[in-house]
Structures are given as structure tokens and as C-alpha cells.
């Protein structure tokens, strides 16, 4: 058992020591809700993320309260009624990126596979994206849809026309090497 632990430790340590890791320099995660009555776009520019270029592991953390909306009331309702940010303050993604090669240049098409946690619910997702390597930095982009029911987010029937059942999530982050 000790040997296995030691092996685990070495494996991890090894991958950390020799793998190139990247952290968020700047960027944002936004979502867009396209509903009959109004379109809502919210932007979170305080996203924390770490990416291990050699193993492909990637993690994201964001705080729900950091989403900025065009109207103050939308932000209030988002936090208090839908995402319940006092109970579930953070959203996380923990997974792996496949199809990325540290040595390749230009735009690479990749996939992110892992667990997305929002509103206290964790779902397995598999979404497409691109990574472009620009002078040592990585520019990561992705666009995918999140269904509100999958994360147990309920919209009252009285305003169902104001909020889409599926929101488009956009990720646009520049990473710098650590």
C-alpha cells in the first residue's frame, strides 16, 4: 500500500514538476439566454482556471455573484431565485482536454470532458473548443449549451417567457505559463 501511495505521489509530483502548467491571465465566462420577451447576457470576468498542458487536466472555479448583468434586478433574481448563490456560491469544472499538443502551432480543435458543477448538481459534459498558442500563451475558447433542468434550476411559470430553458455558455480565456 505504501508503495502504491509512493508511486501515486511520484506520479503526481512528476507530472506537476515536468508538465507545463498554465493559469488564467485574463478572460471571461459569459452566458446568453435568448427568450421571447428579453435577451439576457451575463459576464463573469473573475474566473480562476488552471490547465496542465502535458496531462490535459483542467479546472475552473467561478463565483456566481461575479456575474454582471445589464440590469441590477436581473442579477438579484439570478442570485436569489435561480442559482441560489448563498447556498451554492461557486460553479466548477474539473476535467481533461483531449486533442491538445503543446508543440503544435495555430488553432487546435480540442474537446473538454469532465464534470461540471452548478447549483449543487454535477453533470458529465463533453464539449468542443479551440486552443491557440500565441507566443507562449494559450487562448482557449468554447461555446456550449447548458440546460437549466439538468442542474435543477427552476424558472417560475409566470416569467418563463423571460428566461430561456437552455443558455449558451461562452468561454474565452487567455492563459499564461506558470
Amino acid at each position, binding site marked *: 500500500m505504501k508503495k502504491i501511495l509512493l508511486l501515486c505521489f511520484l506520479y503526481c509530483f512528476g507530472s506537476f514538476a515536468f508538465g507545463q502548467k498554465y493559469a488564467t491571465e485574463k478572460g471571461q465566462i459569459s452566458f446568453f439566454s435568448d427568450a421571447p420577451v428579453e435577451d439576457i447576457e451575463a459576464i463573469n470576468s473573475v474566473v480562476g482556471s488552471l490547465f496542465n498542458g502535458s496531462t490535459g487536466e483542467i479546472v475552473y472555479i467561478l463565483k456566481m455573484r461575479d456575474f454582471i448583468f445589464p440590469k441590477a434586478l436581473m442579477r438579484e433574481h439570478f442570485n436569489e431565485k435561480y442559482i441560489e448563490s*448563498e447556498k451554492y*456560491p461557486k460553479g466548477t469544472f474539473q476535467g481533461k482536454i483531449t486533442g491538445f499538443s503543446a508543440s503544435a502551432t495555430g488553432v487546435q480543435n480540442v474537446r473538454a470532458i469532465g464534470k461540471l458543477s452548478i447549483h449543487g448538481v454535477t453533470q458529465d459534459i463533453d464539449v468542443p473548443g479551440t486552443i491557440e498558442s500565441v507566443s507562449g500563451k494559450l487562448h482557449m475558447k468554447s461555446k456550449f449549451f447548458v440546460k437549466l433542468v439538468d442542474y435543477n434550476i427552476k424558472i417560475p411559470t409566470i416569467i418563463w417567457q423571460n428566461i430561456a430553458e437552455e443558455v449558451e455558455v461562452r468561454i474565452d480565456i487567455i492563459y499564461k505559463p506558470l
Partner: protein
Amino acid sequence: MAALICSTVAFCQDDLLKELEQSEKSETDYAFQTFKGTRLVNGHSVETKPRGTLEFIFAHRFGPLAGKMYELFGLDDAQVRLGLDYGITDNLSVSIGRNSFDKTMDGYVKYKLIRQSKGGRSFPVTVTALLGMGNTPLYHPDLEPDNFEYIDRLSYVSQLLIARKFTPNFSFQIMPTLVHRNAVDLDEGKNDQAAIGVGGRIKLTKSVALTSEYYYRINPVNYDRIKNPIGFGIDIETGGHVFQLVMTTTRELTERAFITETEGEFKDWNFQFGFNVTRTFQLKHK
């Protein structure tokens, strides 16, 4: 071996997440929405309007239930305050209003001094300062003495609103208050009235909450007619509107009036129903 690699991969991922969590500075989390509206029942809550938002408040108080069937339990008679609140910054609001009861025009400046927070900087309560002025042009030629001047129509209120959101569903507020009237009836005899208010909110669902408010007068006038005001409300939120259904012992909606001139009580049907309807408009976009 495959299992081993799998487990180490999972192990590493957890480490990456932990590393990220640790690298995030211990940020300060502020309590938000201690109350739904800027008013608890009749008086103010610690809340101010966010920057660039304008709120229209239509407050309506029926007559006392004592009117029974003859006055349809007070529904025949109505007093109204039309008000506008605007957020200059997220912490500074101004407000104006006009009351039909005694034709008082009121104005307020409200500033959030400190917010309840935890984490990096922690503070147990939210504190808001309120300064208000009222102008009562109600014309009483037979009551006004010869040397009655316009300035005698003015009254002032200064209030410290201190609130804590104990849980997402329970908030509590205390409000030390000083009301100053430039002129008072001789038998009411006091220009300065100190009071301490207590109030709270219990959320029943995400959109429905119970609120209550009570003001205790510290130096009451020696005059039985005037009572301490009590109010209860049910807040119902639907999109951009907030409806507050209230039951209060006062028909008046400025601090001067409801702290120093409340005559009703929860006895002998001497209280009334009413409602506040608010509509918020976003004038400036972020």
C-alpha cells in the same frame, strides 16, 4: 495498473482544484438582499437602490377596519404616497414623495455606510444612515398662531438602520430614530421625539416573505391618543414588480407622521389594510 493510473489521475485533478482554490485570495463575501425592498412596511430598510435604477413606489393605505360594512372595512377611504427612489451609486440613494394624508412632501438621502460581510474582511451587520425632511403645507388657519411661519411646517428625521441577515430566510433590523418637528401642538409638547424601531423578514418561498416593523417611542408624549406604530406585511415579488400587502396601525408613510402621530392599534378594529406596489426601471446600464 490501469486502475492505479486512473486513481492517480483523479488524485491529481483534485490537487489541481485544491491548488486553484488556495491560489484564490481570501475574498470578502458581502451579504446581499437583506430585505427585498427599500421599505420594510412603512419605514425604511437598510437597502438602497443599485446605481442607475429608479424605483416608483405607490403606497396605498385604506381606512380603519372599524368603518365596518358601512365603509366597506375602510376600503371607501384611501391615503396614497407616490414616491420615487433613485440610486446615484450602489450605496447612495435619494428619494422624494408626496403624501395625500396631510399633503406632506418628503425627501430622503440614504447612504449605506458598511455592509455585512465575511471572509477577508468580516463585519456582522449592514449599517445605513437616513436623513429625511418633510414639508407639510396643510392649511389650518384656525390652528395656526399669528406668528406661524413657513419654516414651522418642516420636520426632519435622522435614522440609523442596522440589519443582519442571519440566514438567507431570516433578517433582523433595529433602527434608532430621532424625529424633529419645527412646530408642535402645545398639548403634544415635544419637538424632538426619539424612538427605537425593530423589524424583520422571514422568507416563506423564493418570492414571498413576511415582514414586520414596530417603533417604540423613548420619550412619549403624555397623551394617550398617540400609540407606538406596528405593521405587518407580505412581500410578493413578480419580475420587476414587488407587491407588499400590509396591515398597520398607522395610515401615514413618513417617519414624522407614523412615529409621532399614530392613533391606531390592533384593538377595536382600529387598524387598516394597505399595499405598496413598486416598479423598478434601469435607467443606466452597466
